[in-house]
């Protein structure tokens, strides 16, 4: 039973964090700064010095080129490393506790594993494998162990053997190829990068705006609070997809615009939540004590409000991500997405008309998308349980 736990971790542990932050606040921040600097320098170099078409790493002889989104992605990765992973490492006791809570939920562990695969695949896949190449003469190759009628892939174009009128799949294309002969597996792995970029960048923007607006609103009070909360009302009732379509219609939009618009209209819930949490936290005794002992608002926010709301924010963000992934896929499917970006949605969209005879082009990325969204949901649910002992105690 919940009450049997003698030391309530949610009080004890966060205290510890606040303490540890007291002594080493700059260690993580310093890390962020140190890691961001080279990214920024590289970005500046890419932007100012290199021509539009010179690969960023041409000076070390690789073809790997970076775009604006890649830099943003890099930056968010650094943020996550230092503000999420590092604290977990620095507080092994807390980490162990969370892990114990978390691993009781088996689907969530599997989900975390899957997301790990997507993350690693997205981060390193493009580094170790070349981008899927079009090869018009080897279109519609079936996945390994499957086959396709020779009416679609005849003996000339079949990479494998043609057995009794059917072209057999080969290990050369484990998940088959598209109409243009692009390897589906490679496309999916490249799509992981896009999905991870969407996930990381949007969550960073949402978290940044949501936390700022929420805390400012809570601490400023008065008309500032009133105005900001009305703004939240507007943001929440804003038909984001529609606005995106309108902007797409008027100005045209790529992945960057997608990320921007969708994250700019997704922070309402987070801000509202942070505000109410901040209000309740700021009335808590230890914060009062902190205030009496001379801590200013910024310190209070940083040492008490953020740590105390962090768990819930992380959960909320985890549950927001699948929405973004889905939105991207939907737009791509509608043909309104950024077709220069090899996302899963683009792949599904491209294979849609071939579904009746080459279903793998749709099914493979479709299931990967499905599994990823599912994993984020399971993970969010598990985090909800693991990070929120009160809720757990209530439901048990």
């Amino acid at each position, binding site marked *: 039973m919940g009450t049997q736990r003698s030391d309530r971790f949610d009080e004890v542990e966060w205290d510890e964090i606040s303490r540890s932050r007291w002594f080493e606040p700059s260690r993580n921040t310093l890390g962020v700064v140190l890691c961001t600097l080279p990214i920024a320098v590289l970005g500046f170099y890419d932007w100012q010095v290199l021509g539009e078409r010179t690969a960023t790493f041409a000076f070390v002889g690789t073809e790997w080129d970076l775009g604006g989104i890649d830099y943003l992605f890099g930056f968010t990765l650094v943020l996550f490393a230092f503000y999420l992973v590092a604290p977990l490492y620095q507080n092994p006791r807390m980490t162990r506790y969370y892990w114990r809570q978390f691993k009781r939920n088996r689907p969530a562990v599997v989900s975390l594993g899957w997301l790990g695969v997507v993350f690693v695949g997205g981060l390193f896949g493009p580094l170790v494998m070349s981008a899927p*190449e*079009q090869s018009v*003469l080897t279109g519609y190759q079936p996945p390994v162990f499957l086959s396709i009628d020779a*009416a679609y892939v005849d003996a000339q174009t079949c990479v494998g053997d043609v057995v009794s009128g059917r072209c057999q799949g080969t290990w050369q294309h484990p998940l088959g190829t598209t109409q243009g*002969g692009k390897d589906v597996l490679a496309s999916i792995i490249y799509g992981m990068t896009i999905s991870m970029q969407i996930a990381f960048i949007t969550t960073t923007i949402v978290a940044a705006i949501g936390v700022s607006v929420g805390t400012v609103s809570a601490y400023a009070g008065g008309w500032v609070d009133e105005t900001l909360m009305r703004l939240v009302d507007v943001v929440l009732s804003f038909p984001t997809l529609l606005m995106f379509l309108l902007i797409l219609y008027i100005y045209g939009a790529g992945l960057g615009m997608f990320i921007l618009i969708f994250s700019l209209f997704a922070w309402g819930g987070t801000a509202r939540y942070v505000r109410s949490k901040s209000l309740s936290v700021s009335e808590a005794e230890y914060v009062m004590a902190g205030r009496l002992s001379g801590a200013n608002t910024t310190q209070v926010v940083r040492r008490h409000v953020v740590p105390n709301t962090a768990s819930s924010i992380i959960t909320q963000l985890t549950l927001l991500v699948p929405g973004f992934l889905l939105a991207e896929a939907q737009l791509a499917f509608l*043909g309104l997405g950024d*077709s220069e970006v090899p996302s899963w949605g683009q792949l599904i969209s491209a294979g*849609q*008309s071939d579904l*009746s005879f080459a279903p793998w082009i749709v099914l493979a990325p479709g299931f990967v998308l499905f599994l990823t969204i599912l994993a984020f949901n399971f993970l969010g649910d598990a985090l909800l349980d693991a990070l929120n002992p009160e809720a757990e105690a209530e439901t048990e």
Partner: protein
Amino acid sequence: MSRQPTIGSKTDGRVSRRRWLSALGVTGLSALAGCSGEEGDEGDTDGGGGDGGDTDLIIGEFPRFGVDDLYGETVARTLARKAFEQSDHDYGFDGDDMVTPDGNQVELDIYHSAGQETSQLMAEYIGQELEKNLGIVVSVEAIDGTRFNNEYWTAEPAGGTDTVNGEEIEWTRPTPQNPGPQSVASNEAWDMSVVFGLNTYPLNPLTNEAFFDGATAAYNPVGYYPEFDATGLFETARQATSRDGLREAFVEIFENLAREQPYIMLVLGDDLVGYNPELNGPSENFSNGWDFPAWHVGDPTVSGSYDTVSAAGFSTLNPLYNTEAGAGTAVGRVLDQGYTFDDDQEYFPLLYDMSTENGEVWTFDLRENLTFSDPYGRVTAADFVYLVQAVHQSDWANTAAALSWEGVEVERTGEFSFQATLETPALLWPQSYDPLLYPIPRALLEPYVESEDVEGLQQDEELLELQFSGNLGAFTLDEWNRGAGTTYTRNDEYYLRDIDEGPDRFADGPFFEEASISVVEEQASRLGALETGEADAAGIPPEQFQSYEENEDVTVREIPTPYNRILSVNQRANGWQTGPGNPFQITAFRQALAAAIGKKDLIQGIYRGLADAHFTWQPRWSTFYPGEE
């Protein structure tokens, strides 16, 4: 496939006349019209480029780039080197790579139509071929067709003068599609594009003067300067009094175009259509559908419903303003146009017969059994003359056919006859589809003409719903559901039943009680409808052609078309963004590009063999196609 074939339409040609851009983009571009046959400067060809060179490369009278010995790395690089010699800038090859005078890799972008699978496949294929055979790095960009048209393809008309073929030329009537000399750049910079394809007008190739009648041709967005005497040859063609003379002039034009590759010509795709196997009538040539009233299922008795599917909804059924092929089909079910072309591409009179002595004065003889619905009464020459004079030739109405009637003098000569006098004689005037008219009652038009109310005319209920159609079509329109399509009922009074020409079956046609055109935007659903028998005809993508050929529920037809797939290269000032100068302006360089892109693999890989290699601005089946005497 991007462009869905239209089925059984007598009006295909009529409409495509309005669509030089065969809508490889998402939308058909609105009103694009013909040219004005203007100045025909004669002049010596300056020996600026052409063929001949220091290598043993032989480019014949009618070169076929992209196949056999005019395909491959060697040919392409030889031609490119030749172009570099003519260039003011020091381009060259560094190993396999093509490099700029600064020694940088040559990198170009290519735009394709967003969301169009074939367009994207083609763009990437071109990129690969150019990289392999010419050492050019190509980056593929997607763009919405309309956006490309507005921002890249066109420009503010600026006008200006330039020396073309050693002659001073002035752009007197710049258009957004030809804003001026090569120095006039398009709104946004671009290198290459497969966003748009164009029509090659095999029936009346004279229409092509809009593209190639000199550097000042009405439609020349890429800034192509012909190096042969295009204006002179077009003038010859216009003046020709015999078909042979005409053919001679055109063969020369098309041989030159094949050499100069104003656009890098790639393929001419076929329309692939699946039909209900019970259906008798569909044929495998460009006039497929002209004899639709004779089509029938099983026995030639009136029964059932003829149901087709359309990939897109119709923006208007107003015959005065429609520019879309699909809507043209929908209108054509209800309202015949003046004439059509039969299986042999011969003129076939519907509402009126056209005749001429010299190509200058044309006489229109109306059938006398044509009537509008009540209260408009019989169709007379007065209706047509009024339509042309008060509407098409007015300065306010802006109808889709306005350009066809520019400078044409129309005059009523009897109750059922009128005549038109052209500014310059045109033996193939009907083949240009210009004198095609829909019958519209004069009384319906009058109020709008008086108030010069263009919006009223566009939005007129009777025009939009074709309620005046009388006995002028095979069917009458029951309903136009904007999102879902059109439904029709057989017109028992159809005038075509009483004519003397054409198949005997016309006397009992049409052989369907009802007809419908359903808007089904998903290709998979259209094919599904075809398979389940919900539709009697539907377009088929090449990759599924063979399997449908083996399918007993579907009969497939491969219908050649005059719509091409081209690689447009921007020969204007903002065309070649990778370095100084613009090699696209050099014929030899365009030849190099044409030689670098393999047409065989393209046709095999993307079109499954169901397309023709495109060498010059005519399909192989055109009588004006050079080469095969």
